[in-house]
């Protein structure tokens, strides 16, 4: 994979990591039927951390971050997000979901609503924000992702990169404390990847806690403070980006890196 984001000076000073714990995953296990997808996952994410999760397809990386906002249910162990433990209590789940933003590979914008309505929907209905205020917030974030002029269009009229930026703005409108990215650039044309990564870098610079499942290794090198490599449902290796890429320890990691960086 290319170093798409390299031609940008990144302000790493602002990306401070605090000691406060944002997400605490302890001995978490998950099965799909009899298939053991996630095995003994232990992961602590501090506030302000930018974590990149990579690994071969089917390694469980998407499932892992989807467990964090309960799009997938785990069967053993515990996940504590912002001090609230994920259980089958619907009130807790909705609370966590409104604090944790998520961007999907296929954007999952709502095609029957305009861009602006996509962004104001959750603030109005979940946060009970007055419509005017929600619209102002939405325009603020649409300006931030550099597409305020598209506000009255429908998602189907936008390019993939623009749609993904809207999806990011939509999540930000809920003022989340944590952002999850599930392969946000995998469905995009090469020319559009950069605009999405730039948006994500800006977020990182503002100190957002982020967990990104991505194969954009340039992004990982520049922005992440930790890279996690997963295989067969387990965390195989985690390290700081420089160490991870230059000096991988496990054989499995070496093979993976040689395959994705080799050409």
């Amino acid at each position: 994979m290319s170093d798409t984001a390299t031609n940008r000076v990144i302000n790493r000073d602002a990306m401070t990591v605090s000691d406060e714990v944002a997400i605490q995953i302890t001995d978490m296990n998950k099965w799909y039927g009899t298939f053991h997808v996630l095995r003994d996952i232990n992961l602590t994410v501090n506030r302000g951390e930018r974590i990149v999760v990579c690994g071969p397809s089917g390694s469980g990386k998407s499932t892992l971050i989807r467990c964090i906002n309960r799009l997938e249910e785990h069967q053993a162990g515990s996940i504590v997000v912002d001090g609230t433990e994920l259980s089958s209590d619907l009130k807790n789940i909705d609370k966590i979901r409104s604090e944790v933003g998520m961007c999907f590979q296929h954007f999952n914008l709502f095609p029957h609503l305009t861009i602006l309505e996509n962004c104001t929907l959750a603030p109005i209905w979940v946060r009970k924000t007055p419509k005017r205020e929600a619209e102002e917030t939405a325009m603020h974030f649409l300006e931030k992702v550099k597409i305020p002029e598209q506000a009255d269009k429908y998602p189907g009229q936008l390019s993939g990169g623009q749609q993904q930026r809207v999806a990011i703005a939509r999540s930000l409108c809920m003022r989340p404390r944590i952002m999850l990215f599930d392969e946000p650039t995998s469905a995009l044309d090469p020319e559009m990847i950069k605009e999405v990564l730039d948006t994500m870098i800006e977020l990182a610079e503002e100190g957002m806690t982020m967990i990104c499942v991505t194969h954009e290794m340039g992004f990982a090198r520049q922005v992440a403070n930790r890279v996690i490599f997963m295989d067969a449902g387990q965390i195989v290796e985690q390290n700081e980006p420089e160490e991870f890429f230059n000096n991988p320890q496990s054989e499995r990691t070496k093979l993976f890196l040689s395959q994705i960086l080799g050409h």
Partner: protein
Amino acid sequence: MSDTHAQTVRYVRETMLPEREPPLAETGVIKWMRENLFSSWINAILTIVSLYIIFVVLSAIIPWLLNSVWDAESLTECREILAAQGLSSHDGACGAVLTARWHQLVFGYYPSELYWRPILALALFLVGIAPVLFANLPRQMLLVSAAVPFVCFWLLWGGSVWFPVMIALGFVLGYLAMVLVGKALSPLAGIIAAIVLPILYWIFLAGPLAAAMADVIPLRIEEVQSRAFGGFMLSVVIGLSAIILSLPLGILLALARQSNLFIIKTSAVVFIEVIRGVPLIVWLFTAQLLLNYFLPRGTNFDLTLRVIIMVTLFSSAYIAEVVRGGLAALPKGQYEGADSLGLDYWQSMRLIILPQALKISIPGIVNTFIGLFKDTTLVVFIGLFDPLGIAGAIRASTEWNGIYWELFVFIGLMFFIACYSMGRYSLYLEKKLQREHR
């Protein structure tokens, strides 16, 4: 690429090609006819044969309609008038049956001095349905829409005004129960309360309350028994009530069938399969004969209302399946997108899932409604006087014994107009949503 290489391997484009107009399509009547009607020998022959068939059919129908006699007291008189013009009874229609009996075909045996009531009810209904059908009308009109069913009920059946008012209060009660209990306990408890409380209220409280209020303020208009309902009025009353009631019921059934809760899911599946698996006519006989066995002794539950309930249940099972198709067609990402933003179940259904699923289901839903409206003619078998029943009654009279074409053509035409309008509305809605959402 390859032809570029044929000249020279190295190639650099220096000027970008400007955009050009597409070639003008050839137009003209003759070209159209050559392409669409006479493109080959077989096509040409088929065209000519079809034109001949159309000519034969029209040359039989048009004179029959044009020679029609509109002013006569009976079929015999009709034929005499035709014979006086030198025509046989097959050469001209006897439209006189329509001019003489149109009020029966339209209103059945509704008292003629009260015709204004169904007409006013229809007018009110059209006002009420307009903001539902056309989204560009002001939303405040929906409040009128909510009151219209009860006003129409009162106008049609008459009697004390308090009865429909107390029934309407049940819905308000249900809404309040859903909001208050839903907030206090859980959304599911809210829904259960919203169903159970109004039903208890209607069974035990609504009647006495209405009677008490009628004693205090006796506001009533002349009562009309539903035996007097007939003709298109009956079809429209049954059809429209069932259409309006079965859509929300069908949607709820479709959601229930998708539910993770075992009891709710199983009840929905059983309900849908049982209702769908038995012919409508059987359900109508059930409404006519059996339903009274299940009701408390002494209650005389109006037959027309029983039929409306049965037809509603019947078509809601079909609507449920159509809507389920729409729900299944939505990508899983839409559910996840809604979930990830923290919307609860009802919010995500109402704001995200159903608008899209219903849009997909529009053709199927309207198709079901058209079928339902035509099926209202089946009530003739349980002794109600729908247009076919009225036609039978007219043909049984001494004046019009032996007439059939004129009546059935008229009835067919009326049904066609109603069903065709529904079909056109469905197309309008599909196009509008297509344009809006891309």
